[in-house]
């Protein structure tokens, strides 16, 4: 007749998890979930839904005197229009490396920031630029041209005069 005596619980022993801890755990989890969703919700705010930049489509009239190989840059735009016997085309002047504005030089384009060089068609010749300067869609509308900075067309696409 040997019964092991019930061990007397010590004040220092860890308590078993009582059922009422469920409420504590539930409140902890709901707080964490609320914080998570509120955080995601707040992060949506800084991502602008409407961009403040000017319209990407614009009309342009080419000057009569524009020679072949000479760039016409509409004021306030970072795009160059050219005219040759095959037609009119537009090349972006935003360097594909880090967004500086390239300048048009006789044998192509060069970037002041990190020395990228491009040929007259915008292809990379030298420097850190990863890709060629994109060509943009040009459409003719009576005696004006409409340039769409959002639409990229394959290199060599021209609109005939």
């Amino acid at each position: 007749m040997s019964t092991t005596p019930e061990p007397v619980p010590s004040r220092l022993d860890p308590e078993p998890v009582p059922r009422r801890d469920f409420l504590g755990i539930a409140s902890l989890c709901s707080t964490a979930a609320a914080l998570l969703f509120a955080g995601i919700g707040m992060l949506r705010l800084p991502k602008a839904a409407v961009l403040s930049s000017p319209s990407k489509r614009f009309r342009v009239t080419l000057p009569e005197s524009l020679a072949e190989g000479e760039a016409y840059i509409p004021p306030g735009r970072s795009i160059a229009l050219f005219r040759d016997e095959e037609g009119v085309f537009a090349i972006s002047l935003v360097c594909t490396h880090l967004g500086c504005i390239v300048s048009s030089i006789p044998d192509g384009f060069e970037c002041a920031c990190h020395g990228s060089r491009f040929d007259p068609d915008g292809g990379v010749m030298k420097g850190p630029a990863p890709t060629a300067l994109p060509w943009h869609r040009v459409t003719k509308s009576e005696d004006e041209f409409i340039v769409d900075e959002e639409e990229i067309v394959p290199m060599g696409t021209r609109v005939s005069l």
Partner: protein
Amino acid sequence: MSESPRKNSALRDFGANLIKSPQRILRSAMRSGSPTTDRTRSEFVFGNVFLHIHPVRTHRWSLRWATTWGLGTASAAAFLIALVTGVLLMFYYKPYPEVAYDSIKDIHFVVPTGRFIRNIHRWSANVMVVAVLLHMVRAFYTGAYRSPREFNWLIGLGLLIVTLGLSFTGYLLPWDQLAYWAITIGANIAQSPREVTDAVGITEVFDPGGLQRQLLLGSDIVGEEALIRFYLLHVMILPLMLVILMAVHFWRIRKDGGLTRPDDVDDRLGPPPPDTYPVFTEAPAKTYHLAAIVRGRTSAVGQGPENTVPSMPHLFYAELGVLMVTVFICVALAIVSDAPLKELANPAVPENPAKAPWYFLGLQEMVSFSAFMGGVGIPTIVVIGLGLIPFLDRERQGTGESFGGPGGKKLVLESAVIGLALVIGLEAFAIRFGWLREWYPEIPQWVITAVNPGTILASLYALYSLWLIRRYNSARAGAMGLFTCFLCGFVVLTIIGSYFRGPNWDFYWSPAEWPLH
């Protein structure tokens, strides 16, 4: 008969109390008497909300100049100066394009002391960057990141990043050519993960680079949205983060057992000089109650004095001294050199050369080969590597000593020579012969992203470090070699970016040779 003297005494007391009240107001604020005994010196520290982040007593080792060179305190002091001058500048600064430029011009030419305050602000920011970098170098070479201070090393790393962020966001605010093009480059570096997503062909569906750039600029151009965001980061978000991290950083120094020190520190220090305020003038009534709550080897029973001195005055006067030296440096630099202000920002014509703040010119040099690797990839690897150091080096040898650990000073010197030789050699080669794009114009971009001077340099440094770990059979030796190499790389690339790069990022032996145009 008994009524009148009481009335008289109340009036008398009123007069006496009125005379004594200034002194009593001061005493009620101070809570303890003048700090002349162990007890009041201690109360001076823990009775004050601002001071009690300090320990009551400071180890003599921590007070040696050569332990810290005061660099941590100097960083905090520079931040304090930048904070005060920055708030003053906010009286006149208006964060709107063109108006911003005019308001900086007003501050420079019209506002009383405006130019001086702006100069101090600019110089204190630079002093802070230098002090924070040197502070990290000091902490690394004394092994101060080791257990139990690993977490504080991580906090310090966070402080370094926030410090650089503060400087960079401040760079845009004048809205001049320098600012505009540095931010254009910076925002496009944030977008440079596209270099990788483009190569894989998933940019259409997964574009973290574009998202980062848009979050930073609030638009797809650097304009009014970008300026207000940078302003918000500069005056609110980043300073708040910095203050919170600083509070944790300081508090952890105390909780982690003060500054790191060698095991045989008592022998190294020797007996205190005779004019030092004596240790424990009054026999403490109880010494055991703190031992119950402080972790680590703190119980000094039977070991004699712990070689500490009261923080008041020893530590506080040293800190005040460092603060005054920092103020002196910032003010002196502000007197001799004006903060630059170029022409109004012109989105059509880049500044040539367009240079970031000096501490980013090393990155800009690497970026001139690959935007992603130089601007995002390698910095991320460096930060992760720095953060992992305390968890990979679990050794004890040399803790608290300058260049302590296997190899010591000799190893650091050797690594410096190798680090310098590799970075100078690679840069000289790339400057003289160009890089892959010049040789094979049709090469796919991912090859250049993977193979460029930045990645080659980082890989060579890493290989050398692995070899050091084998040679010395010690992770600390590898860490010291790698840290030294990266330090040399950073310094050399920064110098090349600052002095040897001119218009179109071409190489020139001196700015005097830059073509005029």
